[in-house]
């Protein structure tokens, strides 16, 4: 007879300790929501319930499976409604990156008779560029479109089989002319909407799009692939036998439902939240511009409401992120010294912007004027200190 082993704790206690919280009464401001937004309260309450009822394989015929199927259909319908698309255009994927890869390569596969030329803006997320490199390594061609000083690609016709245009830039916030490009050409448009989905309505004209739940306050591990009705899309990967033939593996049903709940809440609140965040970003832009030898990058008006990026001349990106973290501010940087490679941000490089000393601040729902003012009070001293240490 098989005897089950005694229960034992698998996770070590240290797993649960936060590693970056400094000792002492430092007030923490999380200003990196463009990397990942904290779980929305609406998602948390749904997640707890859905974990209880959404564990079964939605394809099966028994009661628990029907419950899971119901929750999955519910998640799909709520996501479709919030994004303004049809439920059968929505696929849940294991990540935003995977949705991008499925979207770009699947659109190419669907149009293989028309050619193999993939074109993308030079400021796309690396997920799109990686898909392009994958396509090129398999004999296709991949080229990029230049952008102006604000990071915006020119609106107009593009000679390509598939063109990738992000809804808005994830590093500098500039909104891209997706609808204008789509209107000027017959070429199908893949739109990476990860940076804007939920926050801004999706523009018109795209054929396939991708989004990522943890960017709007859903759980990580939920990507969304949108394929418009009638668009020729073919699975570029081996595929799977699922309720939804476009997906890979069994959907995380509770997480998808939580993501949908967060998305609904974000869409419902966005006019108020966006206005508040845009005003705080304006305040940040104006304040930061007063620090000597500073460049504020991205479009000041036609942009994401919650993102602002600036670069300080002579400042090491890693040093400023570390110094700000010590003072309670969590921010991101596109500078080479903070990246896993020695290459600086391809977005800043394509814009002709300064690539070192870069800081990206992205606001959350809860970010207050006090958070912004404390950051503005802290930055001049931090920047001056790093410059002083550099011998300037």
């Amino acid at each position, binding site marked *: 007879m098989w005897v089950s082993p005694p229960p034992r704790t698998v996770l070590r206690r240290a797993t649960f300790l936060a590693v970056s919280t400094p000792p002492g009464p430092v007030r923490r401001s999380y200003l990196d929501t463009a990397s990942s937004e904290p779980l929305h309260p609406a998602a948390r309450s749904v997640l707890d319930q859905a974990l209880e009822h959404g564990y079964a394989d939605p394809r099966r015929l028994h009661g628990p499976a029907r419950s899971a199927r119901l929750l999955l259909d519910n998640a799909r319908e709520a996501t479709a409604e919030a994004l303004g698309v049809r439920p059968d255009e929505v696929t849940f994927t294991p990540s935003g990156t995977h949705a991008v890869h499925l979207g770009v390569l699947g659109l190419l596969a669907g149009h293989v008779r028309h050619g193999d030329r993939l074109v993308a803006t030079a400021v796309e997320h690396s997920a799109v560029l990686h898909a392009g490199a994958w396509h090129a390594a398999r004999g296709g061609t991949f080229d990029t479109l230049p952008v102006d000083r604000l990071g915006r690609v020119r609106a107009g016709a593009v000679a390509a089989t598939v063109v990738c245009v992000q809804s808005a830039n994830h590093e500098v916030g500039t909104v891209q002319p997706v609808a204008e490009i789509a209107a000027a050409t017959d070429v199908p448009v893949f739109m990476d909407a990860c940076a804007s989905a939920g926050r801004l309505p999706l523009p018109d004209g795209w054929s396939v799009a991708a989004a990522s739940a943890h960017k709007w306050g859903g759980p990580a591990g939920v990507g969304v692939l949108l394929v418009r009705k009638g668009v020729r899309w073919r699975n570029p990967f081996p595929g799977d036998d699922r309720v939804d033939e476009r997906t890979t593996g069994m959907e995380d049903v509770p997480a998808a439902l939580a993501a949908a709940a967060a998305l609904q809440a974000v869409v419902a609140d966005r006019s108020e939240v966006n206005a508040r965040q845009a005003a705080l970003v304006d305040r940040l832009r104006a304040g930061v511009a007063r620090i000597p*030898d500073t*460049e504020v990058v991205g479009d000041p008006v036609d942009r994401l409401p919650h993102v602002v990026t600036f670069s300080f*001349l*002579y*400042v*090491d*990106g890693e040093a400023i992120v570390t110094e700000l973290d010590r003072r309670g501010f969590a921010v991101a940087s596109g*500078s*080479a*010294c903070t990246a896993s490679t*020695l*290459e*600086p941000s391809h977005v*800043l*490089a394509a814009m*002709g*912007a*300064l*690539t*070192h*000393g870069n800081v990206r601040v992205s606001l959350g729902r809860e970010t207050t004027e006090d958070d912004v003012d404390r950051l503005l009070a802290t930055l001049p001293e931090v920047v001056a200190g790093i410059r002083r240490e*550099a*011998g*300037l």
Partner: protein
Amino acid sequence: MTSPDLEIDCRGMLCPRPIIELARRLPEVPVGAVIAVVADDAAAAYDVPAWCRMRAQEYLGADEAPDGVARYLVRRTAGG
């Protein structure tokens, strides 16, 4: 190939060090003179032109040092 009045060797330096060296040594040459920055750091290709724009200096372009390392040329203007 432009013959610089001053060449700064920034081989092996990571960003933003080459730009800091450029700024520190700019006063060593008169207005109108050319400074060359030899740097193998990838960011220098973007940051030397960006520095010129921000500090109102004239970026002349890039060529290569004899060992193949990139060399960025800057003309000092009255603006700096």
